[in-house]
């Protein structure tokens, strides 16, 4: 099992290098899409195998560099949370790359897209598998650079401007993360997360130097996760990318490089305490409310979805914050919050990926992203509209779908944790979300076909297959929640709640 861990990173990276070589060999260029799909499919299957296997922590010392239980090199860790993230990332990646087979036909040099896509996916797998602070930074940076280029892939004017803005802000965020890592290293002499967590209390986990590290890390990761007030780049960058990339960015990149890293560092490295909890709660609540208010007024379909990403990630960060507040005192409430938060994280990946893919399908067929120029898509594109509707119902939190359950759990957890005001806000935001998606239904799907929608035809089969698969996930994961809780979310929240104490267990595995 541990031998499988590096392959999550190496297979996509190696495939990307091979794609570049194949693209320059006459006659072999046609193989690149197959290779890309095969690499992502391999990762998805491997993620399912990992999920089905032993639910405990797996640890791999890269290069077998360890002495008497001390890692000398880099450690890769696969625990419950990592497994959940691996499944999420590779599920959305598989759907997106399958979708891209047809969608990207309109673009030139598609092999560059495939190479960048594979590099981004592999790097995100690297982020969630990292048991080492600097390693995490490196892979966050690889994923981010690939996404900067992919946002500008269409080379149109707005796309370039959005990509440049995203690049500059993203780089500032990365620099802040590296500063935080530097401070932690100079305090503890280690980069291994478990070792840092172990030694931080000795030098003063609440002292000014640790505070400095926390300020840098939280600010940098909040920038990556597009939390309000660091969200300025997201509403430009996410809609500008080609649709499969929008699905990847909103669906998994802001989670892997932002929220996941934030959770890991707050819970497993710095250790949960009331100050960090307050910061996370404030960031989460603010993003949740501001994001939805900005979304309601949007008429550009993809931009509307992007603002909803900010708002929905607000739910997740809010739940994480409340969990951090209760983790030292009441484990049960913290576990419930984490369950809600992580469940919503997975659900958001599924329905936001679905919505962005269907928006891409609509944009391609109807030739517009403006809701006012559409109408009656149910008649001209029945299957796409069906998928879009399932995604909208899920994000709006309508009962049998997955979004309803995760929001319900978060709200219950907030009430139990003694935050009735925040729970009320969460309900309000859910209603606003519903309102905004009623608008989407009303203008895009219902009524008489208008504008570009008149000439629209149903999307090609690969695109439909990707959307239907994600729609099935949205329906099934809502109903199968009780089943999934022990399989997926139990080990994941345990991994976070083990905190700095559990981090010591990270260091196992073969020593020479």
């Amino acid at each position: 099992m541990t031998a499988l861990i590096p392959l999550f990173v190496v297979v996509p990276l190696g495939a990307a290098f091979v794609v570049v070589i194949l693209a320059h060999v006459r006659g072999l260029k046609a193989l690149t899409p197959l290779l890309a799909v095969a690499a992502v499919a391999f990762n998805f299957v491997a993620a399912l195998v990992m999920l089905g296997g032993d639910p405990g922590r797996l640890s791999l010392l890269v290069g077998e560099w360890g002495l008497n239980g001390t890692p000398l090199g880099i450690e890769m860790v696969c625990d419950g949370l990592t497994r959940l993230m691996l499944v999420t990332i590779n599920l959305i990646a598989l759907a997106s790359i399958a979708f891209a087979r047809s969608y990207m036909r309109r673009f030139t040099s598609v092999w560059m897209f495939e190479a960048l896509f594979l590099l981004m996916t592999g790097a995100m797998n690297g982020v969630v598998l990292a048991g080492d602070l600097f390693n995490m930074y490196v892979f966050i940076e690889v994923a981010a650079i690939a996404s900067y280029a992919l946002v500008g892939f269409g080379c149109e004017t707005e796309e370039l401007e959005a990509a440049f803005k995203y690049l500059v802000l993203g780089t500032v965020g990365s620099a802040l993360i590296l500063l935080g890592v530097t401070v932690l290293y100079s305090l503890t002499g280690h980069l291994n997360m478990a070792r840092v967590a172990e030694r931080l209390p000795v030098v003063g986990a609440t002292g000014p130097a640790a505070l400095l590290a926390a300020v840098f890390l939280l600010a940098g990761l909040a920038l990556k996760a597009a939390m309000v007030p660091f969200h300025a780049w997201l509403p430009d960058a996410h809609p500008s990318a080609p649709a499969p990339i929008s699905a990847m960015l909103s669906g998994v990149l802001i989670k892997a490089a932002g929220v996941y890293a934030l959770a890991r560092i707050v819970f497993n490295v710095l250790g949960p305490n009331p100050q960090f909890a307050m910061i996370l709660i404030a960031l989460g609540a603010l993003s949740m409310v501001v994001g939805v208010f900005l979304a309601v007024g949007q008429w550009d379909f993809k931009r509307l979805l992007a603002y909803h990403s900010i708002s929905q990630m607000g739910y997740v960060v809010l739940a994480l914050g409340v969990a951090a507040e209760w983790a030292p005192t009441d484990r049960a409430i913290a576990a419930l919050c984490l369950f809600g938060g992580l469940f919503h994280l997975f659900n958001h990946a599924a329905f936001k990926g679905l919505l962005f893919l269907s928006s891409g399908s609509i944009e391609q067929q109807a030739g517009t992203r403006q809701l006012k120029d559409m109408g009656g898509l149910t008649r001209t594109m029945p299957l796409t509209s069906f998928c879009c509707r399932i995604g909208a119902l899920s994000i709006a939190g309508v009962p049998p779908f997955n979004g309803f359950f995760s929001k319900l759990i978060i709200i219950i957890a907030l009430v139990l944790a003694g935050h009735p005001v925040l729970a009320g806000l969460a309900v309000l935001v859910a209603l606003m979300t519903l309102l905004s998606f009623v608008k989407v239904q009303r203008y895009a799907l219902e009524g008489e076909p208008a504008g570009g929608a008149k000439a629209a035809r149903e999307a090609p089969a690969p695109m439909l297959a990707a959307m239907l698969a994600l729609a099935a996930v949205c329906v099934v994961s809502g109903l199968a929640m009780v089943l999934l809780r022990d399989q997926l979310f139990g080990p994941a929240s345990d991994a976070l709640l083990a905190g700095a104490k559990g981090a010591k267990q990270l260091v196992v595995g073969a020593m020479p």
Partner: protein
Amino acid sequence: MGIAIYVLTFALLLIGIYAVVAKKNVIKIIIGVLIIEYAVNMLLVLVGYRPAAQSGDAGTPPVIGPGISAEEVARASVDPLPQAMVLTSIVIGLGLTALMVAMGLRLYEKYGTFDMDQIRRLRG
């Protein structure tokens, strides 16, 4: 003395952030990003420094070579790990520069200006 060195490094970081946030010329923004990289890299090298055995000399490199024995390296050389991190970070910065220059050139080609305000206005 040491405190002044650290504080000036953070001042350099702030100059970079100021350029990124307040300047509107694409080239100036790129320069701001590069200044931020300098500050971060410098801080990394600084935290690994320890003075050479003979005071007044530059720090001992973590390299065994003519005139530097293994014992001396183990006893007095500077920390190699932050240097490896900086090397990574320098290379990341170089890659980013290439990407930023590509985007800057492309923006100029499309809009005929480096001014982000004008670019925004032209976009409408």
